[in-house]
């Protein structure tokens, strides 16, 4: 029993890593209608900025704040000078452009900071908290807490604010949005900037555990995408819960389903997606879209 609960708690903290990246992907998707494969790469760049600043003596929190500001600017610039050209065209092309951006950023980081694993300072101590025979690190708890806060803020942004409504309107139909007086270009830049800031937070949270390398978030990206689809593209809360479900089920399946084992546990989120989407095409928590002929 103790093992079972411990596996669930482990799964939650792994799921939080996926959730962090997934939230940023959802934000860009809600604001531009695109899946941004470069989200992880941009986040890694932010983490390198933090690392570089702390190495120059800046306190960690200050470095994070500076990096978040830089990330907003970078995200907005990427939208304005790169993505703008592709947003109206074939969505496949736009996605491939984000793949190109990911390659470029990874190569750039490798060139500037080498492919060495860099130790990254943690916001939270590595102390262990034990309860009911389960141990969990303060770092995992802190990470999870920050993600929950980010999730609630994001949900609030989309559901409760005029800006959130405007971002969604622009993603759905930029022309109609413009007819209503929405400054489409500026809103797209804001969407990318906010997503980049969220990505920066995500990277800062997970970098101490994964150690900083140019490809740090590459393996997490697939899981994050899975969480995004499973949770439903429109719901930040749904996506975070989906990420946790994936983290937990993966662990349980690996340990308790001998056929799956640790080598094939990566199949779990996809089986889950498949089953869920057959039943609920809009994802676990997504809003249903009725398309009429």
């Amino acid at each position: 029993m103790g093992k079972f609960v411990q596996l669930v708690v482990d799964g939650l903290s792994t799921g939080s890593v996926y959730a962090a990246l997934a939230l940023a992907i959802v934000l860009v998707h809600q604001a531009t209608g695109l899946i941004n494969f470069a989200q992880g790469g941009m986040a890694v760049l932010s983490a390198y900025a933090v690392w570089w600043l702390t190495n120059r003596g800046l306190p960690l929190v200050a470095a994070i704040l500076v990096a978040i500001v830089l990330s907003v600017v970078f995200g907005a610039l990427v939208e304005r000078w790169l993505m703008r050209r592709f947003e109206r065209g074939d969505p496949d092309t736009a996605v491939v452009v984000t793949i190109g951006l990911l390659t470029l950023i990874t190569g750039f980081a490798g060139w500037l900071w080498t492919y060495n694993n860099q130790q990254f300072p943690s916001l939270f101590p590595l102390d262990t908290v034990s309860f009911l025979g389960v141990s969990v690190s303060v770092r995992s708890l802190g990470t999870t807490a920050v993600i929950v806060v980010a999730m609630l803020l994001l949900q609030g942004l989309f559901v409760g604010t005029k800006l959130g409504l405007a971002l969604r309107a622009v993603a759905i139909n930029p022309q109609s949005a413009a007819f209503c007086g929405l400054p489409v270009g500026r809103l797209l830049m804001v969407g990318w900037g906010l997503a980049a800031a969220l990505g920066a937070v995500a990277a800062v949270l997970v970098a101490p555990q994964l150690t900083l390398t140019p490809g740090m978030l590459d393996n997490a990206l697939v899981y994050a995408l899975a969480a995004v689809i499973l949770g439903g593209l429109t719901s930040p809360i749904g996506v975070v819960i989906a990420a946790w479900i994936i983290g937990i089920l993966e662990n349980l399946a690996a340990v308790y389903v001998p056929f799956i084992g640790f080598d094939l546990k990566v199949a779990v989120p996809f089986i889950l997606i498949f089953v869920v989407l057959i039943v609920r095409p809009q994802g676990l928590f997504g809003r249903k879209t009725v398309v009429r002929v």
Partner: protein
Amino acid sequence: MASSPKTSSPKTSASKTSASTTSAPTSSATTSSASSFRQRPWVRWGAPLLLVAGLAVLPLVMTEGANDTLARIGVFAVAVLGLNVVMGYTGQVSLGQIFFLGLGAYVTAYGVQSGWNIVLVFVLTCLIPAVAGLVVALAAARLGGLAIAMVTIALPIVGVPLAKRLSDFTGGSQGLSARFVEAPEGSGLYDDQWQLYLVLVIGGIVFLMTSLLVRGKYGRAFAIVKGNENVASSMGISPYRYKVLAFTIASLIGGVSGFLYMVVVQYTSPETMSFGHSIELLVAMVIGGAGSIVGSLLGGAFYVIVPDVTNAIDPSLTALLQGALLLAVLFVLPGGLVSLPRALMRRLRRSPAGRGSAAPPTTPSSTPGSGTAAEQSETERQGHA
């Protein structure tokens, strides 16, 4: 891959334009004078003959390195072609094409190592991936848009550990070698020449058959399904069946590319089908030109040549250079390399008109600044109307 509202995809306006133009999006590029030249019978028959003759001679006169490179281009051009059938022509995002290449390569390697007849091996290399693709498609084609993308992503991601687990067939992480393509005795050919001939012949047949397919009845049905599934249904075309068909054909072609992979590379391991390569195939398809036969060739060339070129420039900057090159190409040619002649033609035609710095006048959407797009919004409407 894009938002749920946009998944009904870019060319939804196909129902406005006629279906036949969508099935051959490479048309309309050439000027009328050029096409009348091409209608002359001696050009019509002579050009393909010349091409075949050229390809027949090419392996004999090129260097070994050039032959190897061209053969590898052939391998990945076929893989990209398969992806184009399901994605470029039918509009279903597939991120799993490399899995079928890998599966084909394993079948070939295993068959050769077991000493089976090579023709049987080739047939199995077509059949097994096609059946695997059919099974996946029967399930996945019920889903649309991003969901199908996620299910297909799973193929390489689960395929790699699966290949390791089935080490009795796959050689585990050490992979399988199979050197079975040696130039026949007495042919006077070197191995690289023989390999290239095999790639040219097999690849050529696949390209020919695929181009007939997409220009024919099935191709039109694919285009209609891509354009708007509701319209397709109303015309009595079952989107489900055609999606399954396209996916199965793509898997079969992927299997053939796996056979060619073994002809050229002669070794396969789980890394062959890693997720990253699947993404690279997608990149190659878009860079070459989605929904285009020539684009598939160009995409294969891009897939193979760019790593070599960036290696030649600076091997420690390959990722940086490849990313930059990809972005540069798409920035100039959002329609892929295949749109280069069209873009050049437009530039030529435009410059004497002296319209200077005007934005590309392809769509009425080129208002600077906020840039709204009339055509895109039409897409929206039809997705929701």
